[in-house]
């Protein structure tokens, strides 16, 4: 089972762009350690780890890349070209990952993306504030330069991904 760091695909333009959201919740156990208030740091606040925001973007962009070949390729994150996150995200806020496919060929793909945050406590209307930029590179695992062989089964796009696609009305892409 893959640990999913996106909740819903909200926009999809084939071979161009995919947008997904992640609702940050205090029910997520890791937030209680990142960061836990104690005697030394009584003001510490739970904050979404930036590393998991990179993973969220990787899942968003990875689905976009995988969809180009109808999830026949094993798409793996190969390189974080650039990652800048400018502010913290707290429980109750929503993150939006907006990924654009920049280049794809047999060997892999590159994507650029923005990370946005919606603070529901600030406004009754939904407004998104850009909080970061993440550029990634993906490799098509079976096309690796060393000629290494991997299992035939596509272990990258597992049932969790299919659930995400299904809820977005994109299940036929993975068939």
């Amino acid at each position, binding site marked *: 089972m893959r640990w999913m760091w996106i909740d819903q695909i909200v926009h999809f333009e084939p071979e161009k762009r995919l947008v997904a959201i992640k609702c940050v919740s205090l029910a997520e156990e890791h937030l209680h350690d990142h960061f836990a208030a104690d005697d030394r740091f009584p003001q510490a606040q739970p904050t979404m780890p930036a590393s998991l925001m990179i993973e969220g973007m990787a899942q968003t962009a990875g689905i976009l890349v995988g969809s180009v070949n109808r999830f026949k390729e094993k798409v793996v994150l*190969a*390189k974080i*070209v650039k990652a800048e996150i400018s502010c913290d995200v707290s429980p109750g806020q929503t993150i939006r990952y907006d990924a654009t496919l*920049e*280049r794809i*060929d*047999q*060997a*892999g793909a*590159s994507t650029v993306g923005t990370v946005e945050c919606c603070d529901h406590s600030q406004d009754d209307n939904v407004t998104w504030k850009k909080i970061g930029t993440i550029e990634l*590179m993906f*490799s098509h695992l079976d*096309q*690796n*330069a*060393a*000629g290494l062989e991997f299992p035939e089964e596509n272990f990258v796009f597992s049932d969790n991904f299919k659930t995400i696609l299904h809820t977005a009305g994109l299940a036929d892409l993975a068939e």
Partner: protein
Amino acid sequence: MGRDEIFENVREVLEEALGADEDEITPEASLTSDLEAESIDFLDIVFRLEKKFSTDDQPFKINQGELFPENLMENPDWVQDGKFTDSGMAMLEERMPHVDFSGFADDRDVNKVAELITVQSIVEFVDRKLAA
């Protein structure tokens, strides 16, 4: 486009792709042994070169394996016991005229071929491709 301009553009590409400092990117610097490029960096470099040198009138498209060798071990005519055969050496020189193989004739170690790709190799590759 002149060689100096090509070099400046290649240098920018390598700075962005490898996070290398400007003074490290000399013509003779090896991408793997000096600038610490890994296999995925080669794909990044290819994508960036395509973007850097493409124009509206003339796309700069690099085919897979055109700039860097791939899947060399699979062909026994080219590689035996980890060393390039005469046929393999001829293939390398034909497929990669942008690389200087003059000091490689005695070694022929397949694991060291990537070390031969220098900044100058990339400049040579771009220059030949733009002129074609």
